[in-house]
């Protein structure tokens, strides 16, 4: 298994795509801080790091979902298009092992990317905060940091599973990515529509992926006034979705005919 994960990491390491994605993510974190520094505006006596980090987590989870969809769909679907999947399986690689290695490689890369982006956000906030306010207030930061990191990874994991599943189903990374992003955007619209009125359908939105993602994003934004459901409930619902989608992905892949 380690050998297969190593191969997946090697294949990804040689592509431009993950580096471009990471740069894009870092840009969305650093540019607002740079603007803040250049404006020189000081609003408080000390920079409360916990509050300052909300914009970083919002960027990572918001843009991160799109980037994860692109990365996971590309890592899975491109193998169909290139014809390398046939070559790999024809060499005696077990399908379960192949898919597991692929998923673990995506998890490693996404976790590494998220962690790198957040650490850059922390460091950039400390630097700009020190330069502008002069003092950093660390109060409540550690708890918030780990809770938000966990929530962010759960959010991304659901869309990672979805992108892998759709890329395999459609045998194409472009379609897999498009369907996942369309789901992400489309579901929000459906939730908005169902939220009009007070019928059972409004209650049902609580079990939608988008609803629970929004809930966790709101918590990451530290705006607890509009928390709609407990964080653990959203996490359980999202992880259930992830398990169901991944089970479907394994089932599909085991039965799929890999034709030219």
């Amino acid at each position: 298994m380690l050998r297969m994960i190593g191969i997946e990491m090697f294949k990804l390491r040689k592509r431009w795509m993950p580096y471009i994605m990471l740069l894009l993510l870092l840009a969305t974190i650093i540019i607002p801080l740079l603007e803040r520094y250049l404006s020189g505006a000081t609003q408080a006596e000390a920079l409360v790091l916990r509050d300052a980090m909300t914009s970083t987590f919002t960027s990572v989870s918001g843009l991160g979902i799109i980037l994860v969809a692109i990365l996971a769909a590309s890592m899975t679907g491109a193998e169909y298009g290139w014809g390398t999947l046939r070559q790999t399986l024809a060499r005696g690689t077990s399908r379960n092992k192949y898919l597991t290695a692929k998923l673990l490689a995506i998890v490693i890369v996404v976790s590494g990317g998220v962690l790198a982006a957040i650490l850059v956000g922390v460091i950039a906030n400390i630097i700009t905060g020190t330069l502008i306010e002069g003092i950093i207030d660390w109060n409540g930061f550690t708890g918030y940091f780990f809770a938000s990191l966990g929530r962010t990874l759960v959010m991304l994991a659901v869309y990672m599973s979805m992108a892998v599943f759709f890329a395999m189903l459609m045998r194409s990374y472009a379609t897999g990515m498009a369907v996942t992003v369309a789901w992400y955007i489309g579901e929000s619209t459906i939730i908005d529509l169902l939220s009009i009125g007070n019928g059972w359908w409004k209650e049902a939105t609580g079990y939608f992926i988008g609803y629970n993602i929004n809930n966790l994003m709101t918590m990451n934004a530290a705006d607890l006034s509009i928390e709609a459901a407990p964080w653990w409930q959203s996490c359980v619902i999202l992880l259930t979705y992830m398990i169901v989608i991944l089970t479907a992905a394994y089932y599909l892949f085991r039965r799929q005919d890999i034709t030219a």
Partner: protein
Amino acid sequence: MYDSPIVKTEGLTKRFGRASRQIVAVDDLSITVRRGSIFGFLGPNGAGKTTTIGLLLGLIRATSGLISLFGRDISQDLPSLLRRTSAVLENTSFYPYLTGRQNTEIFARMTGGVPDRRIDEVLETVGLQRRAGHKAGTYSLGMRQRLAIAVALLNDPALVILDEPTNGLDPSGIIEIRNLIGELGRQGKTIFLSSHLLHEVEQVCNHAAILNKGRVIAQGPVDELLHRGRMLRMRVSDVRAAVTLLKDVTWIKTIETAAARGIVRIAVDEERFPDVNEMLVKGGIRVLEMKKSEKSLEDFFLATIEAEKAAGAGNA
């Protein structure tokens, strides 16, 4: 040497699509490839050759029937059976952003236990060492085909499955690959060669099966298949009279004529040649020339396909 079957299928069937619009790609296919043989798998486009290879390699799930490799059912432990097998698949592609060498390294790591010097050896064998540092995306079809063969040779397989291996190669490349197949055969490897180049199969293979519309319509040793197409070619003084004389003879299978040139060709066993000569002479027909002509496998292949078509039209 040819005793134990390395590849065996029994009643293998693959249907694609839903019940209302089902396509039968492989229909009740039963073939046996014995150890050490070079087996040619012939058929026109769409006959089901690539699907059959996909079924053998577990890439495609069979609708029904059995497949065994090395005497073991592939449903039992496909990965371990495939580790003794290598395949060059039709239109094989590689990671376009990796070099030829990096691609080979990836598949070597997947296989496991392949030393670095083996990578150099196989690249050398297929004549790609000079371009091994270039990205596979810049390779021509022929170069990709060579790379696929290099990858197939990495693990010193007991069974090599080749699907149209000379596609896209120039004439010298085709000869090299043909020689390579011969060399692999001499090393005792079992070769399963799917090709539309019939003369290639004729030159390289010792056994063959002919596939049409997913069904095997003939199979056996290549010599035997060629024997089935053995003809007696004669130049006679009166073609019409010769045909009248020979047409009711039960042991003459077919009669073809080229009247303008005075040629009559008949399918008949070799030991009957003197009898034919005697009949014609006794019938007052002068035999100006008599020659044994062997149909090529290509002629046999085309004739068999035509006969199948005619039988199909007759049934309809």
